[in-house]
């Protein structure tokens, strides 16, 4: 129960960060993908099930707030969460390389999938243009922010399991 509430708050904070706060610090027109960092962190620390649910909810929130067709974001986030969740088997609280590498790969996968799901279907070929202008800056920015955000999520996760989160199984 505690875990569910903490995750919901994390989703909400990440959403606000991504849409409002980071728009003041946008570099070359991109904002870091805080929600992806959250999804990857949860996948690495908590496994597939939790990550899939977190990805679904946060993607839904993003899509609802951005207007248009709802459902693509949660789908991609869930896919990323499912794949990243396999890394939970080698989870080690002292390892910072694996989660950040996963953030990197996850953001690339997310961006390319998003491009395929929207722009390619609109007939806008030219992946390399989008690669150079949107995807690469976004991946790099997300990676940098992830370096700082992952330890925070890790700390929260430790606190949850410390305050009896072990007994509850979300």
């Amino acid at each position, binding site marked *: 129960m505690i875990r569910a509430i903490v995750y919901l708050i994390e989703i909400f904070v990440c959403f606000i960060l991504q849409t409002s706060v980071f728009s003041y610090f946008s570099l070359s027109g991109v904002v870091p993908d805080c929600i992806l960092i959250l999804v990857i962190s949860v996948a690495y620390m908590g496994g*597939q099930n939790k990550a*899939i649910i977190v990805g679904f909810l946060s993607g839904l929130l*993003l899509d609802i707030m951005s*207007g248009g067709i709802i459902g693509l974001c949660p789908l991609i986030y*869930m896919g990323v969460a499912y794949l990243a969740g396999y890394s939970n088997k080698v989870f080690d609280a002292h390892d910072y390389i694996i989660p950040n590498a996963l953030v990197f790969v996850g953001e690339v996968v997310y961006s390319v999938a998003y491009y395929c799901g929207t722009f390619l279907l609109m007939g806008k070929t030219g992946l390399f243009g989008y690669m150079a202008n*949107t995807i690469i800056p976004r991946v790099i920015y997300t990676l940098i922010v992830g370096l700082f955000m992952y330890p925070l999520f890790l700390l929260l996760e430790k606190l949850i399991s410390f305050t009896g989160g072990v007994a509850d199984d979300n």
Partner: protein
Amino acid sequence: MSGKRRRRRAARRRNDKERIQINILPKHVMFVLCFLCGVIMFVSYRFPAYMQPVKNVIDMVVFPMQRGINHIGTRISDSFRRFEDLEDLRKENEELRAQIEDLTAKSQMTNQDRYELDALRKLYELDGKYTDYPKVAARIIARESNGWYRSFTLDKGSNDGIKKNMNVIAGNGLVGIVSDVRKSTCIVRAIIDDNSSVSGMFSSSGDTCIVTGNMNSLKNDGIIPVSMISMNASVINNEEVVVSHISDRYLPGILIGYVKDVYVDSSNMTKAAVLVPAVDFEHLDEVLVITVLKETEE
């Protein structure tokens, strides 16, 4: 004895619980939620009205926070800018003073022209073309939440009389169109968005063209493509492009930008060009929503 049995039963129950938990496989969760996603996608595409209450509820929670953060953020960035820009402002001030003198002289001449124009227009009964549209000022509180679309959220919604397909301007240039309305916020799709296309018109000649958004070329060169210009049209560089009369959602006469680099496109049937938007989309903060819809005008 009974205590021991109870304990054993409790342990068995705990075991059962654990076993049930383990039995939920990630691929089952994935499958169910994917199916749910598909359903939501279908519903939001086919019956957008059903999603409206959900949107309103979430909006009610998120909107105050976004507005608060926006308030703080604007204040902070303003105070930073105040120190940075002092030198620049001084320089700019001098330039502007020179410009004012220049412009006052020009405006006197223009005034004379305008009296003449008014008189002539009355003569031809051509009023109504340049009427001032009623506007509502709004502030941008969030933008492009997924980095791909050029859209942003304003702090005015259906409570303030905003409706879908209302035009949004900033300064005197076209910004975009309201694409989605909630109770207290609305979403604006910018004309530079890849999904957007506006029917434009060269203000001097009246030749029409299509202005489409393109994020890539905007990011590289600050321009967006213009296509479907008639081969017979004579277009000069830096000519104004305004919204044409045949546009179905945009109000005619609003400035879009300035055209340049006209060339014959690959089909050899029409000309194409690029356009510098009149609005600086990178530093957009406050915009005006025109509270007149194109449909009601006709």
